[in-house]
């Protein structure tokens, strides 16, 4: 499973095919020691929390390290259209260039085209450190195309990390090859370990020339997934597990899944909300199966967090996404443009960027530690959520009105912990027009006490205040965590003095549906 956000993008013929994506992801052991600083894997925790060899693998991988995702970009190439299972949250016929969710792509590439695209993107975007193959079908149901792409990229640009995301059915057959290509990150989407649950998620799987249905299908899939996970762990390949949270079907069960994958060496667990809308034409979309609310998702993630790192920064991007998580520059790199581009792959320039990020990261970390000292002596149990408008670099540097998403931090006396993000770009949503954009933002961050922005207009300021969310622009261009801690300290003081009331915030809405650029005709994407 990931994210193309360009309305009006012309899909090519191939593009009919779109698919389900499977999320891409990671593996064993970050921060098993636990501790308050640990949020997403290696996130704020950073190098100190991880064995050095593991940190080396994840530190520049935006999907495996929350901290890295502020600085580094990933790209997916859609070389793997075929799939070997059917999921009730996927509809392979749905094709919409405005859609941002796993499994959806607008153009299928050959391994040759894909490798060229990777080099073109790498030469223009030094932040791009990771190539993932996530679909739109299953990469391991298309092994020749998947490994053919890896082979070409591995030879031309050895500094690019390779990863893939699979449903796991074919995984045990390919672990040796995955190791040969030095793919050191693999994501398996595991939604259940109980065939009773699985039968409600997977109508069928195709395995060794036979279609299995019902509980037989789910049992087979689950066995293959767990076997594959164990093999990856044994081979020293970092494995992330993605799970789609489907309320009423596997929400409680995912706690069991978490234990099962943790015990088999999974490195990171990424519980994602179901994306489901009738216009997607999926079984769940048509049956009215709802996705979780923001607080339901957070509660489950918190429950699973025990000794295992949870990934909370996943953007569920498309199988052809390009850019930082949360942005998609895929439309800049059409096949047509890439064919005509003069690609200058400059490894030196890319290394220079990574070096500059290291400097920036150290500064950010030092500033955070310094600010954290100011919370020493505070013993409040009060936790609050803050929304932050950022366009990368770990800073409060986005204008409120331009934000396509807000990052959410949970504040406590232990510091700032990244706990998620909320998409607020305009989606195809029956009934909501452009004028309701602000109302949509408020619904999306309704559980937050304040929103930190680089800039904000007078009108939205007033509306936010009315909704009980404090608009804060005094930390413009500051580091996110440092700013958040400073705000929180002031909040606790105001709480003590009675200047702010201690009220529980409500829940918030996770947006569903396809992205539409502001001003685009609303019906276009559906």
């Amino acid at each position, binding site marked *: 499973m990931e994210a193309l956000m360009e309305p009006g993008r012309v899909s090519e013929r191939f593009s009919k095919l779109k*698919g389900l994506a499977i999320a891409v992801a990671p593996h064993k052991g970050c921060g098993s020691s636990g501790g308050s600083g640990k949020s997403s894997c290696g996130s704020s925790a950073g190098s100190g929390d991880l064995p050095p060899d593991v940190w080396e693998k994840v530190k520049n991988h935006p999907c495996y390290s929350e901290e890295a995702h502020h600085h580094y970009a990933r790209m997916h190439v859609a070389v793997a259209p075929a799939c070997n299972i059917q999921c009730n949250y996927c509809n392979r016929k749905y094709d919409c260039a405005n859609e941002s969710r796993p499994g959806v792509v607008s153009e299928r590439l050959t391994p040759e085209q894909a490798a060229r695209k990777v080099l073109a993107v790498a030469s223009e975007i030094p932040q791009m450190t990771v190539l993932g193959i996530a679909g739109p079908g299953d990469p391991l149901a298309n092994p020749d195309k998947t490994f053919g792409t890896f082979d070409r990229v591995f030879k031309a640009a050895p500094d690019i990390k390779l990863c893939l995301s699979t449903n796991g059915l074919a995984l045990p057959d390919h672990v040796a090859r995955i190791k040969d290509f030095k793919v050191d990150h693999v994501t398996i989407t595991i939604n259940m370990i109980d065939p009773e649950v699985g039968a409600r998620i997977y109508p069928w799987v195709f395995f060794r020339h*036979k279609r299995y249905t019902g509980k037989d299908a789910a049992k087979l899939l689950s066995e293959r997934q767990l076997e594959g996970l164990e093999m990856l762990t044994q081979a020293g390949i970092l494995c992330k597990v993605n799970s789609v949270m489907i309320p009423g079907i596997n929400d409680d069960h995912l706690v069991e899944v978490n234990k099962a994958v943790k015990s088999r060496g999974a490195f990171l667990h990424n519980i994602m909300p179901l994306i489901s809308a009738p216009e997607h034409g999926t079984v769940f979309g048509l049956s009215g199966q709802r996705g979780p609310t923001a607080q339901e998702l957070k509660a489950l993630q918190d429950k699973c967090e025990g000794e295992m790192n949870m990934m909370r920064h996943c953007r569920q991007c498309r199988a052809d996404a390009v850019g930082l998580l949360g942005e998609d520059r895929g439309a800049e790199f059409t096949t047509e443009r890439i064919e005509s581009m003069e690609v200058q792959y400059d490894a030196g320039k890319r290394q220079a960027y990574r070096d500059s990020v290291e400097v920036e990261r150290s500064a950010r970390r030092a500033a955070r530690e310094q600010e954290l000292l100011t919370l020493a002596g505070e013993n409040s149990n009060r936790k609050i959520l803050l929304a932050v408008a950022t366009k990368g670099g770990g800073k409060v540097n986005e204008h409120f009105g331009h934000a396509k998403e807000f990052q959410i931090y949970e504040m406590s006396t232990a510091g700032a912990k990244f706990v998620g993000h909320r998409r607020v770009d305009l989606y195809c949503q029956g009934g909501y027009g452009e004028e309701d954009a602000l109302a949509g933002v408020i619904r999306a961050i309704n559980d937050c006490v304040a929103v930190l922005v680089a800039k904000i207009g007078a009108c939205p300021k007033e509306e936010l205040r009315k909704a009980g969310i404090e608009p804060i622009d005094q930390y413009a261009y500051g580091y996110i965590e440092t700013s958040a801690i400073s705000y929180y300290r002031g909040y606790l003081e105001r709480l003590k003095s009675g200047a702010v009331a201690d009220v529980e915030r409500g829940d918030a809405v996770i947006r569903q549906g396809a992205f539409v650029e502001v001003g685009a005709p609303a019906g276009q994407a559906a």
Partner: protein
Amino acid sequence: MPYKIVASQCTGCSACEPECPNKAISEKDGIFLIDPKKCTECIGFFDEPQCVAVCPVDKTCIVDKSFPRYQK
């Protein structure tokens, strides 16, 4: 009767192509076709037609009634 692929339903995902034991499936302009002269309905190979079993869209690989039934 050989199988055929309903073009308007085909997503072009290519899953069927490598599964066909007769190499009867090929791609043309992003859509896949079954060569009726090569299709054996998988008789003699598998219990079920492989293209039907792997296709992600129901009723896309169907029996082509304009041809006589396949004879071993």
